[in-house]
């Protein structure tokens, strides 16, 4: 499946993320502008150098977000692709820039993702409109009344809780406490990340004793709704060679860029199958990059809920099949472990401004590869992987490598 026809290399030239959290005085254009200007400055380029824009936003997906940002920062007439792909929106915007360069349409592209989500609460479920006065079957299930809460649950914390529980049923070893310990790790990691929405260390007791949302996910085990943006300038390998040595040194190689959807599996339309498409994306990415899971110095994966992080250890091949519980218990995924996962604090504490997430995780890895991660630097990091899942479903995986320049 991996394309090898286009031999052009892809590099991150500049990248930036805003602080994640509450930004009541900024709209999505302000947040996106901050990220885009940051990425352009980081790469030493301007809007005039950019040949294409992939603009990601979910909650205002009808808006021409890319053009709104152009109208503040630079209207150069280049094509804009406004994309919306659930929680994989940011990764999808990045793929747009990558594909355009691979296709030879431009040698430099910009991707950004922006979201305002502070105080948003549950993002799905409750499609239950008022029941009518006369039962009338409607929709694809011929339902006479709303089904959320009557036939299972539509809310994300409940859906992803079941995904973690299903793994436990298949392989054993899971428990409320185990999932809470994953959250404890990420909240601990976040204390070193000044851009995280929440940077408070939480004890296991605090996590397990917090408000239950959907067992076994308590509130701190759920991704944090917040505001934020991230942007990246992607450049072709040939163009990069014409730039300054300083730009070449700080550039980070995108050695794999993959987007998949969920192939049909039994039950995939009953409970979303977030596993198969992640396994497929990871396999394609490792092949494209010519690296394996054992080569990864850090991983930023989609811990939208603590129950989700566990299954992705397995899906990304970080452990042997069925071995995610033992892998976590070994301490491997803590920042001092063999495969540090979510040293940013992850979605549970760094926050999850949906469309920004798939570029913010690339920023996190790129910052470590550049050796610029400050107190939370993973020493000597050379290769890292980012992963997002959007229900529906879409999975984005990127593998990044430190420049040899």
């Amino acid at each position, binding site marked *: 499946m991996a394309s090898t026809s286009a031999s052009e290399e892809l590099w991150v030239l500049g990248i930036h993320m805003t602080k994640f959290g509450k930004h009541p005085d900024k709209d999505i254009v302000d947040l996106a502008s901050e990220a885009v200007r940051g990425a352009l400055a980081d790469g030493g380029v301007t809007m005039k150098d950019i040949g294409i824009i992939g603009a990601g936003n979910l909650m205002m997906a009808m808006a021409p977000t890319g053009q709104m940002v152009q109208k503040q920062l630079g209207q150069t007439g280049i094509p804009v692709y406004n994309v919306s792909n659930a929680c994989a929106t940011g990764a999808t915007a990045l793929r747009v820039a990558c594909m355009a360069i691979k296709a030879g349409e431009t040698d430099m592209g910009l991707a950004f993702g922006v979201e305002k989500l502070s105080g948003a609460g549950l993002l799905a479920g409750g499609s239950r409109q008022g029941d009518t006065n006369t039962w009338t079957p409607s929709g694809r299930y011929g339902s006479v009344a709303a089904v959320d809460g009557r036939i299972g649950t539509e809310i994300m914390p409940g859906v992803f809780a079941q995904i973690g529980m*299903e793994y436990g*049923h298949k392989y054993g070893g899971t428990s409320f406490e185990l999932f809470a310990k994953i959250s404890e790790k990420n909240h601990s990691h976040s204390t070193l990340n000044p851009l995280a929405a929440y940077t408070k260390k939480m004890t296991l007791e605090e996590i397990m004793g917090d408000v239950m949302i959907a067992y076994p996910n308590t509130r701190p085990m759920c991704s944090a709704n917040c505001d934020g943006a991230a942007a990246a300038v992607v450049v072709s390998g040939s163009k990069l060679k014409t730039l300054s040595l300083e730009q070449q040194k700080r550039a980070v190689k995108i050695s794999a860029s993959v987007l998949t959807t969920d192939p049909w599996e039994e039950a995939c339309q009953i409970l979303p199958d977030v596993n198969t498409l992640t396994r497929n994306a990871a396999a394609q990415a490792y092949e494209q990059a010519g690296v394996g899971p054992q080569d990864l110095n850090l991983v930023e994966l989609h811990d939208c809920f603590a129950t989700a992080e566990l299954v992705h250890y397995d899906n990304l091949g970080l452990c042997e099949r069925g071995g995610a519980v033992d892998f976590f218990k070994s301490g491997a995924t803590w920042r001092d472990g063999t495969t540090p996962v979510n040293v940013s604090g992850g979605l549970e504490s760094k926050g999850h401004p949906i469309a920004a997430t798939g570029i913010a995780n690339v920023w996190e890895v790129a910052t470590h590869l550049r050796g610029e991660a400050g107190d939370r630097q993973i020493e000597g990091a050379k290769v890292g992987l980012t992963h997002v899942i959007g229900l529906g479903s879409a999975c984005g995986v990127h593998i990044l490598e430190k420049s040899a320049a």
Partner: protein
Amino acid sequence: MAQQIPLVDYLVLGDDPHLVANECASCGARYFDRRNACASCEGTEFTKADVSRTGEVRAFTIVAFAAPGIPVPFVAAVVDCEGTSVRANLVNVPADPEHVSLGMKVRLVTEVIGSDDNGTEAVGFGFEPLGG
């Protein structure tokens, strides 16, 4: 007895209430919604297939926080009905992790969810623990 109507069209009422799937005539993939084609093999012929009334809990969550109007807590689950996965609530069992477990054997039951202005009852379904 009041007139009854199923909550969803894949629930068959009567003396032996059960679920019925749209089964792809070509590859056997099963679906509960109205189909345009088979997502597995692209076939367009479907037959009706009765789904086993018993199964085991493959995944569950106890929803404690839901949209307004939805009574909580409740147990949402995926039940493996002899090879066909079904989304449903677990009923007639306390909604706590001491009483619900992975692999638990369950059976389909129906329950009236309300009546409309004509007195017609809408009937939903759930799964309850089998035996003791």
